[in-house]
């Protein structure tokens, strides 16, 4: 009998799960939305995402090499960061800019903090914030609304685009994102000359067709802003496989829905359109794929509720009163700061513990 046994401490069996597997499963969950974006924006998506992922992988390998650490680019975490950043930029962004964003995400937000598991901020969102600050024009223009109507404060433009005779020559039109349009229209409400048209635009935005278009991704926006339905499919996959805690998207989306319904309307309380806000902008992507990032969100159930509701309140605040039309990325980044604090104050009462 070969009496040479492997000896280790208990437990002697472990679940078949690893960091690498977790990362690639999250990437898999992004696949439906990715395919949809490719169909919407064509090869632009492919090039942008390739540049983002390549930038992330290269930066990760470079930093680990310089820090004399084990090179772990195959673990999927840098790949995921790159892909998420690609979802956060417009399809027309110059490729070197998105690659630079990836490099910032990995080098500054991740590796300089100690690498995987030690970063405070969601790297992809830090990368987006860097690009927003450095290249605001590239990051906020060049939206293409793939096949939707065009809404403008100038009625002539709207009507011209809506004319079937014109529309058949357009397969995509550069236009504002719905949230952009909303922000502009809300600002125009105070101007007596534009008031009526602004009301009309908001009414159109909140209309069933517009919300349904947003749900199906027929709107302008970043790669990952335009595919609510397919992000939802991936998000549900994350919840079912328990790779993401349901509390985070539930708390985040619930808070935004409640607040926009209550205070987002123009005719008093509870006249807002929660669905419009849920399906536009980066909310679906943020709630399911960014706020749920394990490293940068709390570990306790109660902490996750607080974190999610905090993200929701901030997103609503920025959308309503902030300088930007959209606030998902900054909301999550701001809440990232509070994670250690939240964890500290939400330590659960342990079994049989009596707290004085």
């Amino acid at each position, binding site marked *: *009998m070969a009496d040479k046994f492997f000896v280790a*401490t208990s437990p002697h*069996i472990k679940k078949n799960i690893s960091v690498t597997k977790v990362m690639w499963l999250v990437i898999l969950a992004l696949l439906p939305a990715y395919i949809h974006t490719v169909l919407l924006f064509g090869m632009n998506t492919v090039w942008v995402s390739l540049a983002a992922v390549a930038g992330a992988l290269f930066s990760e390998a470079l930093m680990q090499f310089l820090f004399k650490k084990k090179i772990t680019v195959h673990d999927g975490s840098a790949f995921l960061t790159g892909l998420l950043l690609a979802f956060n930029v417009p399809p027309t962004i110059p490729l070197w800019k998105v690659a630079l964003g990836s490099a910032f995400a990995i080098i500054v937000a991740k590796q300089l903090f100690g690498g995987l598991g*030690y970063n405070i901020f969601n790297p992809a969102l830090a990368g987006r914030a860097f690009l927003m600050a450095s290249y605001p024009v590239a990051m906020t223009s060049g939206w293409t609304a793939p096949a939707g109507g065009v809404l403008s404060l100038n009625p002539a433009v709207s009507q011209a685009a809506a004319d079937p005779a014109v529309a058949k020559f357009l397969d995509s039109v550069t236009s504002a994102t719905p949230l952009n349009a909303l922000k502009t229209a809300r600002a125009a409400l105070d101007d007596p000359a534009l008031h009526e048209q602004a009301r009309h635009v908001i009414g159109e935005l909140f209309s069933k067709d517009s919300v349904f278009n947003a749900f199906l991704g027929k709107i302008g926006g970043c790669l990952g802003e335009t595919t609510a339905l397919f992000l939802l499919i991936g998000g549900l996959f994350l919840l079912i496989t328990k790779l993401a805690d349901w509390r985070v998207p539930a708390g985040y989306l619930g808070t935004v829905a409640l607040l926009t319904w209550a205070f987002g309307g123009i005719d008093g309380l509870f006249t807002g359109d929660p669905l419009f806000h849920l399906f536009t902008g980066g909310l679906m992507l943020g709630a399911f794929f960014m706020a749920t990032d394990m490293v940068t*969100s*709390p570990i306790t159930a109660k902490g996750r509720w607080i974190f999610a509701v905090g993200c929701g309140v901030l997103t609503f605040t920025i959308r309503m009163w902030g300088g930007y039309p959209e606030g998902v990325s900054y909301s999550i980044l701001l809440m990232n700061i509070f994670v250690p604090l939240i964890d500290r104050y939400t*330590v659960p009462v342990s*079994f049989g513990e009596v707290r004085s």
Partner: protein
Amino acid sequence: MLTFKGGIHPPEGKALSEHKPLKRLSLPDKVIIPLSQHIGAPAKAVVQVGDAVLTGQKIAESTGAISANIHSSVTGKVMGIAHFPHPVSGQGEAIVIQREGEDRFFEYPKYTIDSCDKETFLKVIADMGIVGMGGATFPTHVKLAPPSWKKVDMIILNGAECEPYLTCDDRLMQEESRKIALGLLLMVKNTGAECGVIGIEHNKPEAYEKMSEACAPYQELRVSLVRTKYPQGAEKQLIDSLTRRKVPAGGLPLDVGIIVQNVGTAFAVYEAVYEGKPLIERAVTVSGEGMKDTANLIARIGDTYERLINEAGGMSDEASCLISGGPMMGFAQYTSQQLPVLKGTSGILVFTENQIPKGRENPCISCGACVTACPMKLLPTQLVTLVKNKRYEEAGEMNINSCIECGSCAYVCPSKIPLVQYVRLGKGALRKISARQRAKKEEAK
């Protein structure tokens, strides 16, 4: 269904052996009987090399308040007292007895539930060397004689058998249900408890049926199904599942009026009282994917792992890991040769190379899986971070001592962090710190 919060669902592995009836092993030619087979002080040998002993004769004596007697499991001659491999402590002193012929039993008085009063009962349990047979091996006579100011109203019999692969309790409940019920009744009656409850996981319906039948005649006894979930059989979790009472941190089940015993212990109690039989054998599951065949065996204490493995069918060529006990809380062994079966040996498991968890420890990604899995509602990953940074006192404030070391956190961890090992390290360091502080206080006085 009755259950507790937290916990995990590892693959059960019980199908390998759950349909194998208990089989009594042939007598071993030689037994190795360690002096330390229970929690507390090791027993002291009362025989000398060359002495002839009968089956059931006392060969080592309890030393102190928490200790237990040990008996010869064969008839033969004491060959020596020396150090041998020990499944729990690595090495330990043991009495070696060479068998000579068939069993000749040392005679002890026999009682029934009516002829056995409380005093006699506790004396019999102590004399017969009964200890907890679920694995913790706490001396049963100590557990059943709580201080007079602690009121006991319920005895819980642990038939959860939540460890994967183990099936010996399941078989024992199916095959010896009447004796287990009487063993429980003896404990209920002699501790002044009002009732006895048997908790069985719902993956053992046959055991539940048999035990329910056996308990039906006694209105003090009942059987409850609990959800199949690890660690359902952990004392505090089982009490919570069955009664919703929460054993206070640092406290004992006695603090909520409960004593928990394993079903195997109830069986041993019955045999000790009704048959005058000391604890000289027990049911052991021999299983695992590294075995050619599996078995549930009744083996003499001191028989070797090597023989049990061979009698069960032998190891396959892929065998590369030997576990004493269950895969979640058992002990990995470096050899099966001259390794003795103890009073607390519930299982002998052999696993193959590709079942062994591999992979280096990665950084924690704060996924919180350990937090969700922890049945004690601790924050395992934070405890580990504190221990790694030698901040032991802070780990103490985060209730590191409440950890029951069930291994649920380490099981689910995607970063393969050996959380239980770090927690043990922290507990040890904390013990040293508090000992030092106590010493300082004494000095100051």
